[in-house]
């Protein structure tokens, strides 16, 4: 077990908050259109399927972690030698380093479209990355604290969907299983991208007190997220007609428009401002994971790695700023995430299993 001092560890049930805050991110604002494009009003089944597959992958991840004594980077090196294993881990550094800037770019795009057309990308991303440095320099405990508060505080937004119920027509969901299984599966594959986030457990596992007990919390988190996404999908499908939905880039934001309070008219403004809290854990934990792997790989100080990665991320947000490029970056990230979780993790589990049979240990 990679030794982490006990005062730096967090209790197992915090896994719930970490994973859930990682899973719910910028994707929530607009995933409905993409899956409804392929699976139509059966899209909610795809969400459930994606959730179920996430549980399976999570089981594999926990199995791998147990074989590797909680150190995934070391597992790569033991299986493939120092160099190949190192390169594989380096790809993960890239993956987690791309995540912060893709999330931030997407968010800034939303803000620019909805709230501030003249928000300067560099100003805001500089400020936000400085804040993230402040958070990550405090270590894992502070990052988890941010995950916790940034999940709890915006959770009141769930209640705003109550207003949408009045305008929803649930008969639009019928008939069920109207689409071919392949369409539903394809939508499920697209949905897995929105469910990403639980792979971080591979790297923060040593920081959980009594790591093994965290499995049930991790599953609880994935389950809650799945249910939340399913309900949101059902609500979206009931609120929008299929054609209408295809014309919305951010259906969730559109749904907030019907929220009516005596003192607030355009609720989506509040929603978008609150969304800063939702994306903050994504960025911070992404930065933390990538810098942590760097530390393990190159035995450099994590602060150094953080500074370098954050600077690169900052310049990337400046460099990528139009809709097409952000879309492209999102696609790359999602593909990488998909291949990593659904191809690489099962393969790795297989290899580990064989090696274990042959060598007797990993």
């Amino acid at each position, binding site marked *: 077990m990679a030794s982490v001092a006990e005062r730096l560890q*967090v*209790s197992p049930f*915090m896994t719930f908050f970490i994973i859930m805050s990682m899973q719910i991110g910028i994707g929530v604002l607009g995933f409905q259109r993409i899956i409804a494009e392929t699976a139509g009003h059966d899209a909610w089944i795809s969400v459930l399927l994606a959730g179920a597959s996430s549980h399976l992958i999570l089981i594999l991840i926990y199995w791998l972690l147990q074989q590797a004594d909680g150190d995934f980077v070391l597992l790569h090196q033991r299986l493939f030698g120092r160099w190949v294993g190192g390169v594989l881990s380096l790809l993960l550094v890239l993956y987690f380093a791309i995540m912060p800037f893709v999330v931030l770019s997407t968010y800034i795009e939303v*803000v620019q479209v909805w*709230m*501030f057309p003249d*928000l300067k990308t560099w100003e*805001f991303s500089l*400020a*936000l990355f400085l*804040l993230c440095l*402040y*958070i990550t320099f*405090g270590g894992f*405990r*502070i990052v988890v*604290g*941010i995950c*916790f*508060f*940034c999940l709890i505080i915006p959770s009141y937004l769930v209640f705003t969907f109550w207003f949408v119920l009045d305008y929803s027509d649930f008969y639009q969901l019928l008939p069920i299983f109207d689409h071919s299984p392949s369409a539903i599966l394809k939508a499920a594959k697209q949905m897995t991208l929105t469910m990403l986030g639980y792979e971080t457990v591979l790297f923060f596992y040593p920081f959980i007190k009594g790591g093994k007990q965290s499995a049930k919390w991790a599953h609880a988190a994935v389950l809650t997220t799945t249910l939340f996404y399913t309900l949101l999908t059902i609500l979206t499908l009931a609120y929008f007609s299929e054609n209408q939905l295809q014309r919305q880039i951010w259906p969730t934001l559109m749904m907030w428009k019907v929220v009516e309070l*005596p*003192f*607030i*008219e*355009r609720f989506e*403004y*509040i929603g*978008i*401002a*609150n969304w*800063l*809290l939702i994306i*903050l854990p994504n960025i911070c934990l992404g930065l933390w994971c990538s810098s942590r792997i760097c530390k393990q790989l190159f035995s450099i100080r994590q602060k150094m790695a953080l500074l370098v990665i954050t600077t690169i991320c900052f310049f990337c947000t400046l460099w990528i700023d139009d809709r097409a490029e952000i879309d492209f970056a999102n696609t790359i990230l999602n593909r990488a995430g998909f291949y990593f979780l659904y191809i690489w993790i099962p393969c790795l589990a297989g290899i580990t299993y064989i090696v274990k049979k042959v060598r007797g240990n990993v």
Partner: protein
Amino acid sequence: MTAPPPSVWTTLQTLGSSTDFQTKVYRNDTAGLYLWVSYVEPMVDMEFVARSIFPYLFHCPFSSLEEIHRALPIDDAYISSDPNNVKEKLLEGYLFIRLHETDETGLLVKAQKTLERALTVPEVEFSVVGPKESFIESLETNLFLLRKRIPIDRLTVKMTTVGTLSKTKVAVVYIDGIANPDNVQTVLQRIEEVEFDEIIDSSYIVQIISDNRHSPFPQLLDTERPDRVAAVLAEGKVAIMVDGSPHVLIGPTTLVEFFSSFEDYFLNWTVASFFRLIRLFSVTFSILITPMYVATLNYHYELIPKDLLGTLITSRREIPFPPILEVLFLELTIELLREAGARLPTKVGQTIGIVGGIVIGTASVEAGLTSNVLLILVALAALASFTTPVYKIGNTIRLMRFPFILFAEIWGLLGVAFCFCIIVTHLLYLTSLGRPFLSPLYPPRWRDLKDALVRLPFTSQSKRPETLRTEQPIRFDGKKAKQKRDIDE
């Protein structure tokens, strides 16, 4: 060349350069002896000396210091020849009696003057119900007030002295067997390490020993209520009492504790919980309302419904300034009034409050400098910031508003959310005596929530706060207290 070691003689010579240091020679007629009596006049209770010491000195037959010692009916008297000790005790108000002027040995007799004000009603943390006594400047009296409430032998007091000039006595008080020894050790060690010359008040100590000295958030709770100190000692906290300060420090503390008034415990739990929630709401309101005003009027007027927008626009139609200047103008006026009110004598202060609140407010609206909607908001925010039961956190909250206003000016609502994240992070960093400051919210201690945002009935308070890691986590048998009865029994 080394200086000669200080002798009692030279010490007395040094003291003698002060005119209030006296050495008088008396003659004991019975024994036929002369007595040299030295003392620092302002520190000595002369009436006591004349009544209880001189009669024995002048009328008993004796030939040595030991005999005088035995004859005197005073407990705190001893013979000493240590120059430092003599000096210290003389400055505390002891008499130093010698048989010859050049003697190096003499008798120290306690004749201290004690002058302290009477116990008064707590003024900062006033409560309508409950005890009405508060700490005063004397450490002995304060300890007396505390011991009276916790008359058990395990109440431990550890005394130290801090301050190279002030020699202030500091007492660390805790209940042995309940308080976590680590916490006690941390406090003792930090007080040992205090490097300062003149410690005037406990607020000096709190600034020196806090975990983060630059944070505007106070990290030790200060209170003037002996009942509150007794209650938290029973929870397993540590109290720091400083001589000359009517405020006692309590640690480890948490953010939510700053929003709990001690009166909460004197009221029924439903009422108390309601008041606590009101207080939390008012604090949030106080911090966020003016930044929201700036954000919405600068950037997001779409947020405001049509009908309300009419009211707002009418009130702002004549105003020549942007919202940010308007807000800063009014906020600073309020701060000015508060500061002026705090510095002036009570009666003048009241007048200033009325003049400021009514005249300046109305006049600035009529003159078209600020909108009347904003005037209401700022006044409410100011009022809300005074609902905090602990004075120091109220100051912090008033300060917090300004970064929020600035960020709201730059990025609107987004800026408010951003500033919020910064402050949450800062709070996550903070610790009080090494224990997380945001507990029981983070790290979540679900059981401690019984006395955080709400206060549940005493029957559910059977365990001590988990955050404190007390040595004895159970307060009383919770099951027994909660025993339910069936109907009609």
